[in-house]
């Protein structure tokens, strides 16, 4: 029976977090379907990488190891994955919804003419009845994903084309080792058979880590702090919560004036106007000049020691209490309720 495949993303010689999460999910799907879990790792100096992959329950690990395959570039990785999938004919293929997976996945799906579902938040096996064609499909992959700016949740299926491909963001699936002693087989690929010189036309000139610019306007979730946060150090709590929720940190003018954060994070009449899905106002009183920049947020949570704070009048949730106590709890219970 056709396998479940996971594309392993390699970051500085290590298996990326998202790939371990996908291996965990891939193992569960493979077990339910009673098929093998296979993985493909493409990079350079990958000796020993299997030690970090087999424990997730991988039965066959395909490795393409060549100096020119790291760092990741689109064309050679695509060629290898496409050829391998043509040979192995997986029924399901999973990739991270990362800047690598979202670059590679669509290109592979186009070459194979198989459907790809982006940014899935849940993957489930189920049947499907096509009433028009009077056909029943068994054991399809339900690929469940938000779309329309998060305002709808769609269940997408891929009845006829294989593999059924999906990308998933980091942090969405749980990571769990199946058995530290699990032993799979290694299949080393002859890279010259899977790529051509034309795959190497793109040159990497430079590559470095760099913090991105603040982008509060584009953020779907904003954790904003005011004077009531109390210090620059306490603002770290807001950064932590924003990080786990995948949001950005914003601020009131009083917080900016106090030097807690930089001016590019200011929200309000003399700052940026935002309309996120969720706005968490921490220690912000909610003066009119601040509200002008955020009151159209779809949902607002106000955290304030003062039960009469003006911000509460436009909030959907009012939490009366101390920011320093509440934020760690939000992080804790968010983590406990996901995965």
């Amino acid at each position, binding site marked *: 029976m056709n396998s479940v495949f996971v594309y392993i993303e390699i970051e500085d010689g290590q298996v990326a977090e998202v790939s371990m999460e996908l291996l965990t999910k891939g193992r569960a799907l493979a077990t339910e379907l009673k098929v093998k879990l296979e993985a493909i790792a493409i990079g350079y100096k990958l000796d020993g990488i299997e030690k970090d992959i087999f424990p997730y329950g991988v039965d066959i690990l395909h490795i393409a190891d060549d100096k020119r395959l790291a760092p990741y570039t689109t064309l050679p990785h695509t060629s290898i994955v496409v050829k391998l999938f043509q040979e192995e004919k997986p029924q399901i293929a999973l990739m991270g919804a990362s800047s690598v997976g979202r670059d590679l*996945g669509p290109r592979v799906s186009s070459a194979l003419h198989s*459907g790809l579902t982006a940014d899935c938040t849940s993957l489930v096996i189920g049947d499907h009845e096509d009433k028009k064609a009077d056909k029943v499909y068994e054991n399809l992959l339900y690929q469940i994903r938000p779309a329309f700016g998060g305002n*709808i949740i*769609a*269940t997408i299926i891929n009845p006829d084309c294989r593999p059924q491909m999906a990308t998933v963001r980091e942090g969405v699936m749980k990571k769990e080792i199946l058995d530290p002693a699990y032993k799979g087989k290694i299949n080393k690929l002859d890279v010259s058979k899977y790529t051509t010189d034309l795959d190497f036309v*793109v040159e990497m000139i430079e590559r470095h880590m760099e913090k991105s610019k603040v982008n509060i306007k584009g953020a779907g979730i904003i954790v904003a702090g005011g004077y009531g946060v109390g210090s620059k150090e306490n603002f770290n709590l807001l950064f932590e919560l924003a990080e786990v929720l995948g949001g950005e940190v914003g601020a009131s003018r009083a917080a900016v004036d106090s030097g807690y954060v930089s001016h590019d994070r200011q929200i309000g009449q003399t700052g940026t106007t935002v309309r996120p899905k969720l706005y968490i106002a921490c220690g912000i009183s909610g003066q009119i000049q601040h509200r002008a920049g955020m009151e159209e947020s779809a949902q607002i949570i106000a955290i304030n020691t003062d039960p009469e704070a003006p911000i509460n009048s436009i909030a*959907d*949730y009012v939490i009366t209490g101390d920011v320093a106590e509440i934020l760690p709890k939000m992080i804790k219970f968010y983590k406990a309720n996901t995965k």
Partner: protein
Amino acid sequence: MKGYKIIVLAKQVPDTRNVGKDAMKADGTVNRAALPAIFNPEDLNALEQALRIKDQFPGTTITLLTMGPGRAAEIIREGLFRGADDGILLTDRAFAGSDTLATSYAIAQTLKKHGNYDIIIAGRQAIDGDTAQVGPQVAEKLGIPQITYAEEIQAIEKGKVTVKRRLERGVEVVKCPMPLVVTVNSSAPDCRARNAKLIMKYKHAKTISEMQEANDDYLHLYSDRPYLTIKEWTVQNIEADMNELGLTGSPTKVKKVDNVVLQSKGAKVITSSDEDMDQLMRELIESHTIG
């Protein structure tokens, strides 16, 4: 200098970022009809990159290509007002229900037919479908390289384009031969505003269907000024294989759609107890507000 031939791919989308409390129906779901149709934000970033090349290399032409219903001609006009040279509206019932693969096929066929491109610039992602798949799939179908997540097209020299990419954890600068597809992030510079002279020049630009509907006094304009006619192409113009189009050509099918129900107003007052905090996070996860 002869400049470059640039195609900008742009999509008209409902403004899903604007789902404020006013765009909600009584049952808490989104009233899509109430959302304004806009130029997909990252496609404006893409257009700006194209305009910068045009500033630097005189003789460069920018063609805006959009696939969508007749009213999507609005974004072609918007592009003309900001400095694009012409546009193609690809519109046909046969495209209805396209997934990203069928969309890319139709766009790639159009580009093959149109020919004559050095750089195709798309947005990274459309804010309705939210997949970021069309750019790379168009590149694959044309058999040319792609540079995704671009923040800046830094240079064009000796047939090669240098692009700065903005990734989750860092920055890359890559050099790629033309022709190629570049997809542009929102971290790239905003698009310049409309230009008053160009508004004057193009305000009557229309597709054939729009001219027929308008039935106005300007008809003579279109024979005198060919640049006012926005090309309108259908399946016939692109020699498409019907099996690759629309619903039939789409491997992915939408089985089910659930609207996310947002909480109505009236604040819930909660305490900082573990139970309340746990309950809050569950609610937010269940309503897909977070997670």
